[in-house]
Each structure stands twice: as structure tokens, then as C-alpha cells.
């Protein structure tokens, strides 16, 4: 195993993934103006898995997942090259609106809509898009999404209160419910616990593990322990490159790249 290079492993993983992969990233680069932020990434993600993307601050992990639902191109100077395939279809060929409905996102800081109630926040994807649904369906979606986000029992009596009335951890779960209401295939979590206390963090982590039954999760984190706790696969990014990608168990116990090992043992990052 010692002789295997990172390229071999990556190609093995992606060959295995191609057969059953939901998301396939090929030779992908992302830029801000002339500056390359994400450099030649290849990886594939299978369905119903939790994939952590970890790395030190500024390594491009957030930029990378913002490319997956095409949010990166909204930023000034944001461009990309290479391919990201969702179920074999190039996301650049799909309409951005469809891409974002299929690939939901939760951000670093909880961001419920302050002018909406908890109920309206969950159903916001429908309200804001002007999609008319029956009251019954809407109620069902709200209950289902909040239950999946492990928030239903806490808020079922106060659905008409404003979303901002909840605590930080509850707000973040509300944002997860809001994303789940759109029935996405992939959920992108961009350091979802970085603004939360340890207790709220633990709840979100539990939730991530439960959620993989319904949805595939890409979790960006700079917290090594979090990646180890919740994910099936882990990707380690450094200076815009994907240094190593493999099952979490393997990556944490027998890292193949020296930089991965140094990061895991706390030599930098």
C-alpha cells in the first residue's frame, strides 16, 4: 500500500464512484478574477453518504462547495473551469435555479428570514418561488422537514413565531429544514456549527448522521474531530488542492500524504 500514490487512490475512488456516483467532479478549478482558489479537483460522491471536506482556513473548501450549487459565480470575479456532474449531467448546462433546488445549502451563520414565521421559513423555497401548493401539502412539508431536522418537537407549538425568535442552534436546524423542504439530492453544509456552542454543535452532528438516509451531505469543516465523528468519506484540501480523499477511517488512521498526517497531528492548520 505504501507504494500507491495519491493519484492512484483518487482514480480508484473515482472509478468506483463512477458506477454509483451522484456527484462527479472532474479537473475542476475555481477563480476569483485571476487568482486560482481551487486547483484541479477530482472526486466523486456516492449517494447517501456524508463527505467531509476539511482543511485549514483559506484552503478553498468553502469556495469549492459554493461551486457545486453554482453560488460561486454570483460573487464578483467568480469563475470556474472543469466539470461537475450531477447524476451524469453537467451542472453548467442545467439552469442555475434547478441546480440550486437539487443541491441545497446551509451557511456558516444561521440565516432565517427575519420577516417570516418559523412555518414560512420552512416553506420559504415555495413561497419565494411563487410555487402554489395546497394548505394540506404545505403543512405536511413543514412537519416532515422540521421532523427530519429534529426541530419539530421544539417548535410545533410556536410555528407562528418569527424564525429569529429561536436560539442559534435551533435557527441553524430551521435553515436545514428550509433546505430539506425543497427535497434536494445533495445538501451542502458550509461550516454549519462554527457559530454554535458545543451543545448545539453536537445536535447538528447527530442530525447530519441521521439525515444521510434521505440526502447526500457534503460538510465543510475546519474541525478535524467533527469530520471524524460524522463522515463516511473525508477530503483534505490544502492551498486549493485536494491532497487526499478516501474513507474517513482510512484517512484518519493511515493517511497517505505527509501533509494530511501533519494536519491531523496538529502540526499546522
Amino acid at each position, binding site marked *: 500500500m505504501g507504494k500507491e500514490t495519491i493519484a492512484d487512490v483518487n482514480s480508484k475512488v473515482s472509478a468506483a464512484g463512477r458506477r454509483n456516483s451522484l456527484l462527479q467532479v472532474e479537473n475542476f478549478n475555481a477563480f476569483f478574477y485571476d487568482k486560482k482558489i481551487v486547483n484541479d479537483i477530482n472526486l466523486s460522491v456516492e449517494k447517501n453518504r456524508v463527505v467531509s471536506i476539511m482543511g485549514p482556513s483559506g484552503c478553498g473548501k468553502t469556495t469549492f462547495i459554493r461551486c457545486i450549487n453554482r453560488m460561486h459565480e454570483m460573487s464578483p470575479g467568480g469563475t470556474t473551469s472543469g466539470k461537475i456532474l450531477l447524476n451524469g449531467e453537467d451542472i453548467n448546462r442545467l439552469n442555475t435555479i434547478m441546480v440550486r433546488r437539487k443541491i441545497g*445549502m446551509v451557511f456558516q451563520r444561521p440565516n432565517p*428570514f427575519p420577516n417570516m414565521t418559523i412555518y414560512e421559513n420552512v416553506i420559504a423555497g415555495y413561497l419565494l418561488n411563487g410555487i402554489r401548493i395546497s394548505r394540506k401539502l404545505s403543512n405536511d412539508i413543514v412537519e416532515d422537514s422540521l421532523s427530519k431536522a429534529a426541530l419539530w418537537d421544539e417548535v410545533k407549538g410556536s410555528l407562528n413565531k418569527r424564525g429569529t425568535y429561536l436560539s442559534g442552534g435551533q435557527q441553524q436546524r430551521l435553515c436545514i429544514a428550509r433546505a430539506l423542504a425543497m427535497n434536494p439530492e445533495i445538501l451542502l453544509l458550509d461550516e454549519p456549527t462554527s457559530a454554535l456552542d458545543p451543545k448545539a454543535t453536537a445536535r447538528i452532528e447527530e442530525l447530519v448522521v441521521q439525515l444521510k438516509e434521505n440526502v447526500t451531505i457534503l460538510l465543510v469543516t475546519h474541525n478535524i474531530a467533527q469530520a471524524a465523528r460524522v463522515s463516511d468519506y473525508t477530503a483534505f484540501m490544502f492551498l486549493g488542492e485536494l491532497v487526499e480523499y478516501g474513507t474517513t477511517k482510512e484517512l484518519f488512521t493511515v493517511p497517505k500524504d505527509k501533509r494530511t498526517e501533519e494536519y491531523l497531528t496538529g502540526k499546522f492548520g
Partner: protein
Amino acid sequence: MSGETQRKLNTAYLAEILGDEKSIGKRIFKNKLSGIIIFSISFMVVIPLGFILFYLLVNGVSSISLDFITKLPKPVGESGGGILNALVGSGIILIIALILSVPLAIFGGIFISEFPDSWLSYCIRLSTDILQGTPSIVIGIFAWVIAVVPPGHFSALSGSIALGIMVVPLVLKSTEETLKRIPHELREAAISLGVPYHRVILKVVVPTGIKGIFNGILLGSTRISGETAPLLFTAFGSPFMNVRIGKPMSALPLVIYTYATSPYDEWHKLAWGASLLLILIVFVINMIARLFVSKKEGR
């Protein structure tokens, strides 16, 4: 750093520099003094307003009665009479001015807050700055040229056009400021749900900032409700009750102007009363606007 210096820094030496209970007395005094100076200078700001209110109350309160706000003016020589026509006229002219200008101003404000770097935003910003500095009488002349000269007579509508032009920069600026303060995360939240851009603006950004926008409209209204110069040769004024916007119409500032410059004591009293009424209306609208802001912060 030598051990000796280190020891010195840690103990008596620094204590001496930093001072004890007694030696900081001077600093406490300076602190109190600066507080007193700031308070008294701030208080001076309130004095002119206090004097104006005082004079208006002393001179105007005797003319304000139920008749004053429910009756029409009487001819010279007869006592009594009210300014109902001016009150109604001011309301109509103001509301039409807002109907004409507010949509423009809000969309302009949305545009420059959403696309701050485009050349059109540059033009809008420059022209609103200039418009804001334009003397109201010049705006009045402009309204006269475009809305009084062609039909050949004065009208309330032309007055509304003049006031509408004046209120555009105020509402536009406050809309821009409000929308700029709305966190970027909210837009991203909506975009990540697959919401198209125009819906993000109309359904998330504007509703979130609606209180600030409304506040700007209220404050803009108070600013223009006392404007006299642009109304002199547009709405012109009228001694009769008129609700048709194609005809000359009275307004509170016009009444004050006409009555105050007249030679009759009876009319002077009415002018004082109208002034007090105008400032009370401005006061009430301002209070409503305050209430909006404090509610927003309290949430």
C-alpha cells in the same frame, strides 16, 4: 529584557505611573467636565426648536378650535372661519406627490443598492445629489413650466409634481441606506433555494427593509409638507373648498404665507394657528416614524 527591568515593570514603577485613588482625581474631574460640556452643547441644539414651539403655542393656540379645522375661511371683516380647505388641500397635494414619486424613488434606491458599480447608479447618485441641493423655488419654476404653462392655469397637480420631484432624492437615499444594511446572508439564503434574482429582491430584500423604506417616506413627507415656494406658482391657493386636482388648491404653507403677509389682524391670528397646526402634524408624523424604527430595533 533583563530580570531587573522586568521586576520594575511588574511592581511599584507601573503603579506609580498608573496612579492611585488620589492622583487620578484630576482625570475623574476631566471626565466629568467633558460630560458636562457635551451635554450643554447638545442642549443648545434643542433651544431654537424650543423657542419656535413656544412662540407658536403662545400665539397660535388661541386660534385653534374645532371651527378652525372644520370651517372654510370667511371674507375679510368677518370674524371666525377656519382653514379646512387648506388642510384638505395639503393632504391631497401631498398624497398625489407621494403617488407620483415614491415608486420611482424606491426602484431607484433598489437599483443603486443592488448595482452600486454600474454607470447608471453613478448617474442616479449624482443627479439625486444635485436635485437635493436644488432650491425649491427652482423646482417650482420647473413644475410651472411643464404643468402650469401648457394647460394655461394653476392646478393642485402641478404642485404635487413640484413636491414629488423634491421628495424623490429623500426617499431614494433612505431606501438605498436601508437596503444596504440588509445582511448579504439573507440574499444567499434565498438564492440557495433556487429563487430567481428578481424575486430575491422583491420577496426578501424589500420586505426585510420595508420599515426603513416606510420611515424614509414619512420623513420625506414631513420635509415637503412645509414647502411654500414651489406651491406659490403651481397650486397657487384658493379661498374655496376644492378637491379637483386640475384646479388651484389651497395648502397649509400657502395659507400661512397669504395670511401672514396680509394687513389684517384677524388673518395674522389664523396664520399663527395654521403654523402651529402644521408643526403639530410634522411632529406627529415624526413620532410615528420613530415608533417604526424603535419597533424594528426591539425585535
